[in-house]
Structures are given as C-alpha cells and as structure tokens.
C-alpha cells in the first residue's frame, strides 16, 4: 500500500524531479541559435541589396 502510494504520488509530477536546468539550456540554445541565424540572414540580405 505504501509502495502504491509512492507510485501514485509520482504520477502527475513525473518520476524525473526538477530538470528545469535542461529545459532552460535547450530553449536558450534554440532561441539563441534561431536569433543568430536571423541576424546572419538580415546582414546578408542588406549586403545583397547594397550590391544591387
């Protein structure tokens, strides 16, 4: 009964506790990567227009 209670307590919260540092790192890399790529496109686009 005690074991069942422990298992049920874990449901809804997840068996891996915490882990927000991984989530923050992942989203940070994703947003930074996409932002840097957007910046590189903007710079290349401006250069392309200057050449015209």
């Amino acid at each position, binding site marked *: 009964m005690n074991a069942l209670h422990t298992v049920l307590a*874990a449901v809804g919260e*997840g068996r891996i506790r915490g882990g927000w540092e*991984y989530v923050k790192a*992942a989203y940070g*890399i994703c947003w930074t990567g996409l932002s840097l790529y957007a910046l590189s496109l903007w710079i290349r686009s401006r250069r*392309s227009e200057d050449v015209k």
Partner: protein
Amino acid sequence: MAGMLKRLWNSAPVAAVRAFAAHPLVQRSFVVFTVAVFVYAAWVGLTQAPPDREMGDVQRIMYAHVPMVQMMLLAGTILFVCSVLYLFRASWRTDALAEASAELALVYGAIGTTLGAIWGRPTWGVYWAWDPRLTTVAILLVALAGYLALRRFVDDAERRAVWASVTAIIIAADVPIIYFSVKWWKSLHQVQSNPRTVDPQMVHALRWNITAFFLVFIVFLVVRYRIALAARLREVTVPDAQPRAREAVAS
C-alpha cells in the same frame, strides 16, 4: 503539366495574391505575426502543458526539439524536390531554393539535434548514443555541410548547380531513412508519438509549436532564397539566362 502550372501561376487571382504578398507592409506584418505566435507557443509549451508522467518537466524540451527536427526533414524534402526539378528543367530559381533549403536543413538539424542531446542526458543518461536515429541524422548533417562546401568550391554556376543537384538527391535518400529508422530498428530513440498516445493538452502545445516553427521556417526560407537568387543572378552575365544543365554535364 508545366504549362498548366505556369498558366495558373500567371492567372489573375494568383497574381493578385503574389502582389499582395510582395508588399513590404504585408511582409513585415507576417514577421510580427510569426514572432507573436512563436512567443505564445513557447508560453503554452513551458507553462500550460502538463508535465510528463515519467519525464516530468524535462519533457517540455519536446515542444522545441520535435518541430526543429520536423523542419529539418521538411527542408531536406524541399532540397530533394528542387534538385530533381533542376535536372529536368534547369532554373536559377530551383537552384536558389535548393541552396536555401539545404542551409536551413543544416541549421534546424544542428539545433534540433543539440536539443535532443540535452533531453537525452536526464532521460537516457547520456548526451549521445550511436542509436540508428541519431546516427542517420549525424550523417545527414555532415553530408549537408559537404553539400554547402561543394557549392562554394565550384566557380561555374551551371556546373555547380548540376553537381549540387546530383549530390543533394543522394543526400536526400537519408531523409526517409531518418524518419523510418525508429520503426525499422527499435532501439533507444522512441517511435513517433501521435494524438492517440499523447495527452490532449500536450498535443495542443505541440501543434502550436509546430505552427510557430513552421512560420519561422517560411520567413527564413524566403529571405535565404532571395539572397541565393540575387547572388546567382549577379553571377550570370545575362540576368534572364537559364542554366543549361544537360550541356554542363556533357562538358
């Protein structure tokens, strides 16, 4: 078929839509809309979706990882279609779109794989394993880097386009292998989930994030395509000249 598509492309309703989409104000509004959807989708994924029963909050990485990898596969498919089209009917437009989609596949794939590695650490215990899915993605990324390097090393625009098209078709064979790898070789990476196997709140968050990443993908693809096309048109002496792909192969 090609004639029908051309007539459709030049028809009045499609021309009106093209003119509307080409307006700078419309384009800026689309970018603002895309950013708004992206922010909302991130908020839904990070705060509104429930934590996973097994993985807890770490599972929220899925809302960025899955769309990134899906966009990589989409870009790989566009690359394949453009490369085949180029060999059948040479055009600077398809060549430019192929170059743009290859770069996007590499960017999305590299970031998406990094997110997967971060997700793998708390759930698998390792950042990387030579699992079939991960290995086939790694092969695709290396091949795409080689493809983009090839495009830089060949000076002749027509020859470059033909060589790049042939290379891209070979590389793109990896795209369906990546997709089916989790079904063919059941190993560490899970098989694709579907709405029947996932909590509806998670499906809702995932759909918003796929939409957001797709909108960003469209913006990036259009901008990168324009850069590539402008560079290609600068290269050729006569701007309207179409590349003679088969002659380039023959020579």
